């Protein structure tokens, strides 16, 4: 799928890949501002409630930007623009796919999650069930999602920075790792949230400016831009192409994107940073607006790059097409604008890995250490200490994995992370909210099945067997297993629960259901 990991050639007459003073300057300013924010946030981060949930003081508008910041990765910015610039219409399949999970988050998850949980989505699943097994299973789902997503981002960051700034891959990875650990370790959720907000504003602002400059060449009319593309490269660029050669593959990927969003640990964690369920609701509304707008912009940018830069020139710099947006920026605004967009892309990756690391650290410390190892008996000081140790551990793991996977094609890991979130995390979370007969064994088997089956089926799929291992056939036909694993995770969770023949619940509303709507007094 969308990616950052392909290799560059040095044929194009672009300034890309040479040290760029403007990019460096913008990047240094970004680092300075975000470290300033971290210093300010560190002074406020004294308890676990601050560390994981920013003291629940984030406003809906701020959280809307932060959600968008957590979600709009460099993969979607550079990847979709690249895909559109080289294939035309087909990129739109991704633009829509990345957005449609958000209404689902709003309707089904955001408010109950805020009312029922504290720091992680496991809080909600474990609420009525036995703590230890549920926490372990959801930590496995969380860590699998977070680590795969982190690898994709880190490898992308290394390649991107090498391409844009001329730094070595390892240096780039270490810079990302150190900055990200600093944000999370010292500033916790408060710093991470503001880093997301700054990044979201920069990314949206940069993409908007770029799109306006493109459209200005076409009388501010997108249709005129598309018409120019079709005149230059054939009418086919406006029609569905060969990306969707297998309908079931398209539907399966669509399911992973749609339901995976509602199972991404770093996204779910954001709903605890606002004061109440209403604020959680409003923040998803803003986020959906911002993210939808962003994906419409990437579509315009892709066609802009196709017409103004040209698919051959784009592929000449990076075979995967990832440099379409930066090349477009260079074409329209010269080296300074290229520098600005490069710095924005770097800031984007940095912010996303910070959010991922924080949610992974919460699973390690809050779910595993505090709830399972210490059975809820850890002191406040110990909880905060363990959370910080977990942050450093995950940060180091991210750097090591980033360097280990150098040069590997890790693009599939983003869709794999979505598939695990959709099959491992989402069904159990939804059932625990909706269905009072869910049992511990039901939740645990659903989560473990979803996570493990997704990993195994991806390994057996053409994604790994054909694309990476170069075998001629694959045992499992679909590139993404979500079509199969999401329904099966639901069926397994429900069947196992029913087999235990739990006593029928009493009529009327349980305390659980009352809390889901009313929230907890004093929370």
């Amino acid at each position, binding site marked *: 799928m969308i990616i950052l990991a392909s290799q560059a050639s040095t044929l194009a007459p672009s300034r890309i890949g040479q040290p760029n003073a403007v990019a460096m300057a913008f990047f240094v300013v970004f680092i300075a501002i975000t470290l300033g924010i971290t210093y300010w946030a560190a002074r406020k981060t004294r308890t676990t409630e601050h560390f994981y949930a920013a003291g629940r003081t984030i406003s809906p508008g701020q959280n809307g930007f932060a959600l968008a910041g957590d979600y709009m990765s460099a993969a979607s910015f550079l990847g979709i623009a690249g895909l559109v610039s080289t294939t035309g*219409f087909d990129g*739109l*399949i991704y*633009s*829509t*796919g990345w*957005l*449609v999970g*958000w*209404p*689902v988050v*709003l*309707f*089904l998850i955001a408010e109950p999650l805020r009312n029922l949980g504290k720091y992680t989505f496991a809080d909600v699943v474990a609420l009525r069930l036995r703590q230890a097994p549920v926490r372990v299973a959801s930590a496995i789902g969380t860590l699998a999602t977070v680590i795969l997503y982190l690898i994709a981002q880190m490898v992308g960051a290394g390649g991107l920075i090498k391409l844009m700034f001329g730094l070595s891959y390892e240096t780039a990875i270490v810079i990302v790792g150190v900055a990200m650990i600093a944000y999370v370790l010292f500033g916790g959720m408060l710093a991470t949230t503001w880093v997301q907000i700054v990044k979201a504003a920069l990314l949206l602002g940069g993409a908007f400016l770029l799109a306006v400059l493109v459209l200005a060449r076409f009388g501010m009319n*997108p*249709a*005129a*831009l*598309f*018409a*120019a*593309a*079709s005149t230059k490269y054939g*009418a086919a660029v*406006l*029609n*569905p192409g060969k990306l*969707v050669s297998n*309908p079931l593959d*398209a*539907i399966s990927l*669509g399911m992973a994107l*749609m339901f995976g969003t509602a199972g991404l640990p770093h996204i779910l964690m954001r709903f605890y940073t606002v004061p109440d369920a*209403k604020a959680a*609701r*409003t923040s*998803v*509304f803003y986020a*959906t*607006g911002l993210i*939808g707008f962003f*994906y*419409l912009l990437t*579509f315009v940018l892709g066609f802009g790059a196709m017409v103004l830069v040209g698919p051959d020139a784009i592929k000449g710099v990076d075979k995967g097409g990832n440099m379409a947006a930066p090349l477009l920026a260079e074409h329209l605004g010269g080296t300074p604008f290229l520098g600005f967009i490069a710095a924005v892309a770097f800031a984007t990756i940095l912010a996303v890995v910070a959010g991922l690391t924080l949610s992974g650290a919460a699973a390690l410390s809050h779910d595993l250490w505090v709830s399972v190892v210490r059975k809820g008996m850890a002191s406040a000081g110990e909880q905060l200490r363990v959370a910080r140790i977990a942050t450093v551990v995950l940060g180091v793991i991210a750097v090591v994995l980033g360097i280990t996977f150098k040069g590997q094609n890790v693009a599939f890991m983003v869709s794999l992370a979505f598939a695990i979130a959709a099959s491992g995390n989402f069904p159990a979370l939804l059932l625990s909210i*909706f269905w009072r007969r869910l049992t511990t064994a039901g939740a645990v088997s659903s989560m473990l099945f979803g996570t493990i089956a997704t990993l195994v089926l991806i390994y057996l799929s053409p994604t790994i067997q054909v694309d990476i291992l170069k075998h001629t056939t694959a045992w499992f036909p679909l590139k993404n297993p979500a079509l199969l694993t999401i329904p099966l995770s639901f069926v397994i969770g429900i069947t196992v629960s029913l087999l235990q023949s739990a006593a029928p619940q*009493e*009529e*009327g*509303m349980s305390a659980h*259901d*009352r809390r*889901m*709507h*009313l929230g907890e007094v004093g929370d």
Partner: protein
Amino acid sequence: MADAHDPLRVLAAARWRIALTLTAVMIAVYFGFIALIAYDRELLSVRLAQGLTLGIVLGALVIVVSWLLTYIYVRWANAHYDEQLAALKSEGEG
């Protein structure tokens, strides 16, 4: 509070009804779009205007529909759900 006329229960059921309906509409719209791409490329390739195919318009509409659905839900929740919830909370306390 165990009877079927528990006002919170009625309100909760109303919220789930709306949430599930809107979710179903979103699923139908998105997978309808994907199914068209998969099974009826000719239809999506129809030119509506210079530079605009039906596919591009429908793709953009998927995003617009996502916005509209979230707007409908938030409007309903802010106007009705929150108000009734607040009334129930104050009753509960009083």
